[in-house]
């Protein structure tokens, strides 16, 4: 009986994932057939790949509810019960810094940015100079995300209203845009989006919501969200600052 239930649930989840993927298939097919009108090669690869995506998404969501969400919330509760703000902030920083510094999307963006900087004569056009620049950029983005989670967690503890902080951040970005070198602006704006990966987002969300629901006087809906928002805001500032300093 139980077995049947689990496999039923799994099947339903599989169907859901297929449903999530359907729009992509429709877009690709419609454009290929009616607009581009060229034959698709490797149809086999596409079919196998699609099945893998569906299976992967299903497993991910299963693991999310069973592993990532619970651990994020349990840790939030334990920290709240322990009552040590210091350790909570250290944890928040390590989580932000650690998950970002190795993020593959960020590594790719940093390398591209170094290329632009070399072309724009901001740095010497040697491998060494470029690598140094890209590494510095990665570290500053990772620091900025660590800093963002710390501020976000502090905000949940203290109950500061989110929108004032975010609006201040936006104003800061607008001001910095005026002074930052033109070449860095596009990269800086993009860097806000690439820092938040598929594993970081559920963990950080669960942490925020868990904290907000275990601290008295906080509402998980009003106070629990917002950590990701900080993590996509501060990298823009730090990258522009990096561009201005170098």
């Amino acid at each position, binding site marked *: 009986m139980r077995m049947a239930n689990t496999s039923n649930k799994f099947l339903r989840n599989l169907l859901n994932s297929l449903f999530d993927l359907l729009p992509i298939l429709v877009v690709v097919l419609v454009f290929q057939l009616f607009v581009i009108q060229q034959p698709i090669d490797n149809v086999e690869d596409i079919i196998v790949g699609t099945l893998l995506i569906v299976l992967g998404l299903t497993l991910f969501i299963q693991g999310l509810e069973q592993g990532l969400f619970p651990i994020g919330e349990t840790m939030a509760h334990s920290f709240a019960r322990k009552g040590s703000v210091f350790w909570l902030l250290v944890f928040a920083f390590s989580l932000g810094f650690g998950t970002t510094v190795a993020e593959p999307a960020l590594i790719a963006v940093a390398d591209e940015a170094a290329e632009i900087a070399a072309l724009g004569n901001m740095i010497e056009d040697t491998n060494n100079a470029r690598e140094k620049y890209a590494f510095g950029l990665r570290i500053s983005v990772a620091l900025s995300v660590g800093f963002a989670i710390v501020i976000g967690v502090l905000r949940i503890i203290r109950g500061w209203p989110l929108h004032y902080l975010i609006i201040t951040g936006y104003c800061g970005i607008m001001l910095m845009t005026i002074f930052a070198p033109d070449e860095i602006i596009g990269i800086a704006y993009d860097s806000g989006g690439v820092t938040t990966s598929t594993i970081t987002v*559920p963990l950080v969300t669960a942490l925020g919501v868990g904290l907000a629901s275990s601290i008295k006087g906080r509402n998980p809906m009003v106070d629990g969200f917002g950590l990701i928002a900080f993590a996509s805001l501060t990298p823009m500032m730090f990258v522009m600052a990096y561009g201005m300093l170098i």
Partner: protein
Amino acid sequence: MQWLHAFAFTLLETCRDVLPIAGTIIGFQVLVIRKPLINPRKTLVGFVYVLLGIALFLKGLDMALFPIGDLMAKQLTDPEFIGINPALREVPWEAYLWVYVFAASIGFATTLAEPALIAVALKAQEISGGAIQALGLRLAVSIGVAVGISLGTFRIVSGLELYHFIIAGYIIVLIQTAFAPKLIIGLAYDSGGVTTSTVTVPLVTALGLGLASTVPGRNPLLDGFGLIAFASLFPIIAVLGYAQISEWKNRKKQKTANRKS
């Protein structure tokens, strides 16, 4: 066999990416919290599911979606397909109509399949007690991304300044924040950051680079950027707008109900 090799490689890569996160969690659990997990085996199995899931997902994207996405970006931005003379120095922006349509549709479709967004939407539905529907939120975000990316491609074609658009977007967000229901603000701001991860970023980057390197007068290194910024800004506007519209509708419904009684 080769297929299995490639998958094992992707799995190893995923493990490497997860290592810092796992290290942080285990380190703090053992050294600072010093309490055993309530259900260690279930959690561990959950983690393994996440790892396997992401690895399969990435492998599938590599096999099915990314090559065809790349190819389509190239085909759609090809001067021959557009029907322009590549020697021209300026092209009318209308010539790229199909690119904007493609940008909007692929942005919408990939965002719906974005795992990080599904995660946040599920959490929001759970916490709001169903007042926020996961699918409704995902649709709002996807519409935001669609508009954002399509505007972003228009910007690359027209060569307008990126920061004008972004700052105008910020101003809209500021105004909406003043009027939107307080409950939704955190979630709306968050949705900007979660839209752009595994599926959307590589496809959108391919499109941006394809455009910037084929539109006359654009430099891929300077003009190829900015699409992700658009894709993270417009969902905020869309989610705030969605909340405002549903609040407005509710109020109207209440008014008519009050009048009737």
